[in-house]
C-alpha cells in the first residue's frame, strides 16, 4: 500500500464523505473557532458534559480537508461517553502519537483512530488531524484556553 493510500484509507474517506457529529454551530461565536494556520481552516466545537461528568455530545462545524474532517468526525464518536479526564487523556494521547512524541502504535488499541497511523509519513498534515482534538482539549471543563 502506498503512503497515500495508507493515509486516505477507507475509514477516513468514509468519515470525510459522511461526517458524524457535524452540525450547524452558528450560535458558537467565531472567536471560539480554532484555526489551522497552515491553511486557514477553522473548526468550531460544541462539547456537552452531563451531570454524570461524562461527555454527552460532541458536535463540530467548519469546512476542512478530508483529514481534518475525518478526524473531527471520528473524535465526536470517540469522546462520547468518556469521563472528562478520560476524554482529555484520549485527546492528549492522539495528539502526542501523531506528533511523534509517543510511538504511533498506541493508536492500535484505540479502535478506528488507528487509521491515522499513516499520517506519520505526512508531517505537514498532522495539524489537520489534530485541529479538532486541540479544540476538544480547550472545550473540556476545567481547561485553560491555550
Amino acid at each position, binding site marked *: 500500500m502506498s503512503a*497515500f493510500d495508507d493515509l486516505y484509507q477507507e475509514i477516513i474517506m468514509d468519515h470525510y464523505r459522511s461526517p458524524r457529529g457535524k452540525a450547524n454551530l452558528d450560535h458558537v461565536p467565531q472567536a471560539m473557532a480554532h484555526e489551522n494556520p497552515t491553511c486557514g*481552516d477553522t473548526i468550531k466545537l460544541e462539547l456537552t458534559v452531563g451531570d454524570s461528568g461524562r461527555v454527552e455530545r460532541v458536535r463540530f462545524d467548519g469546512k476542512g480537508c*478530508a483529514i481534518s474532517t475525518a478526524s473531527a468526525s471520528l473524535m465526536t464518536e470517540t469522546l462520547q461517553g468518556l469521563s472528562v479526564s478520560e476524554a482529555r487523556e484520549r485527546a492528549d494521547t492522539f495528539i502526542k502519537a501523531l506528533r511523534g512524541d509517543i510511538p504511533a502504535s498506541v493508536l492500535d488499541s484505540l479502535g478506528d483512530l488507528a487509521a491515522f497511523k499513516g499520517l506519520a509519513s505526512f508531517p505537514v498534515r498532522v495539524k489537520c488531524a489534530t485541529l479538532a482534538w486541540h479544540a476538544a482539549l480547550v472545550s473540556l471543563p476545567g481547561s485553560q484556553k491555550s
Partner: protein
Amino acid sequence: MGGTHAAESRGILNPLGHAGYRGAPNAAGYRGAPNAAGYRGAMVGSRSVEDVRADFPILDRTVNGRPLAYLDNAATSQKPRPVLDAIRVYYEHGNANVHRALHTLGEEATAAYEEARGKVQRLVNARSSREVVFTRGTTEAINLVASAWADSALQAGDVVLVTEMEHHSNLVPWQLACARRGAILKHVPITAEGTLDLPGIEGSWDPRTRLVAVTYVSNVLGTINDVKAIAAFAHARGALVLVDAAQAVAHLRVDVQDLGCDFLALSGHKMYGPMGIGALYGRESLLEAMPPWMGGGEMIRSVSLESSTWNDLPWKFEAGTPNVEGAVGLSAAIDYLHTLGLPAVRRWEEELASYARGRLAEVSGITLYGGAARGTVTPAAGVFPFTLGAIHAHDVAQFLDREGIAVRAGHHCAQPLARRLGVPATVRASLAFYNSFFEIDRLADALEAARRFYE
C-alpha cells in the same frame, strides 16, 4: 547535448510505457498538444524543451513512482547544472573570505562576488553597482528598506501604501515599520479581476503617502502589474516606490530605469539560482542617505570603541561575511537565463500558460481565480490558483503528489488576498520554461481523477 536520450531515459517521451500511470492518454495523444510526446517541436529560443530539461538534474527523478512534474515554480525554481557546478567549483577552487584577504583565493573570491553584483546590476539595468546590495532574498531586501529607510525618513502620520495582493514579505515589514514610526499603513484594493488599476490607487491615495510598496507579479494570481504607471503616479505626488520583483525576474525583463522605481527587491532562488541570496536595488541618493541597518564587519570604514564610520555603498548594508557561494550561483543563473534569452523564455512560457489555461478550464468542477488565470487579463504570468469542487486544496495537492505532480496548496503567504478571494486555501500550479504540455496534461488528468476519488 544528448537531450533526447536523457529525456527518453526518464520516460518522458514514453509516458504510455510507464506502468501504473492513471489518466494516461488515449491513442490519439494529448489533446491540444502539438504531438503525442507532449513537447516535441516546443522550443525555448533555439533549444528544444527536451534539451533544456536535461540541464536540470532534478527533473530526472521520480516521485511516488511517477516522473516528477514540477509545477511549484512560484515557490522556488529548480537549478540548472551550470548553477550547481558554479557552487561546487567555487568551493573546490576559490573559497575564501572576501574583501580582506591579501592572498590569491581571497582576491578571486572577491572578484567573483563583485562580478556577481555587476551581473545583477546589468540584469535590472541599475546605473551603478553601488545601487545593488546583496541580501538573503526578497524578504530581507524589503526589510532593509522598511528598517533603514523607514527609521530615517518615515515620520509619525506619514502613510505607506501597500496593495491587497502583496505577499506577507511586502506587507508585514511595513506593518512593523509603521508601528515603530507611528505611521499609517493603507492598502489599495484589487479589482474583481484580481488586478490593480490607477483609479483604485487614486481612490486609496492619501496626500501623506511617502512610499508605495507593490508587487510586480502576484505570486497568487499571476497578475503582472503596470508598476511603471504606478511609479509615475506616485512620483508625481512625491512618494517613493518599492517593487517586489521576486516573481518577475525569472520571467520578464526588469529595468529599474524604465520602471522608474526607487527600490526593487529580488530573490535568486526564484530565478534558477540558489536559496539564501537575493538583492536590493536602491536609488543611489536614497541609499546614501539611509543609515546602516545591521552592524558588524564589512559595513564599517573605521571603528573605535565609542563609534564607527560607515563603508561606501553598497557594502554599508552588507554586515558580516556575505553569501559568496550564493552570489556565485546567482551569477551563473543570470548567465544561464541570458544564454536562453529572456524573450525566448517569455514566449515559451506564454505558450505553455495559454495551453494550461485551456486545459484547466476544461476540468470539471474547477474554479480558477483571477483574470490572469482565466485569460481575461493580459499580460499574465504562468500562475494558476484554483479550487476543485468542494475538495480541500490540501487534499487536491496530496492527490497530485501521489501522481508525482508538485503544486502548492494554501494561502501562499498572502492571507489578506485569500480572504478577498473568499477561499482560505487554493491550489496553485505555477510554470517555468522547463515545463511541458505533457506535464500540463498530467495535471489536468490527475485533477479529473482527484475529483472521482474524493467525491
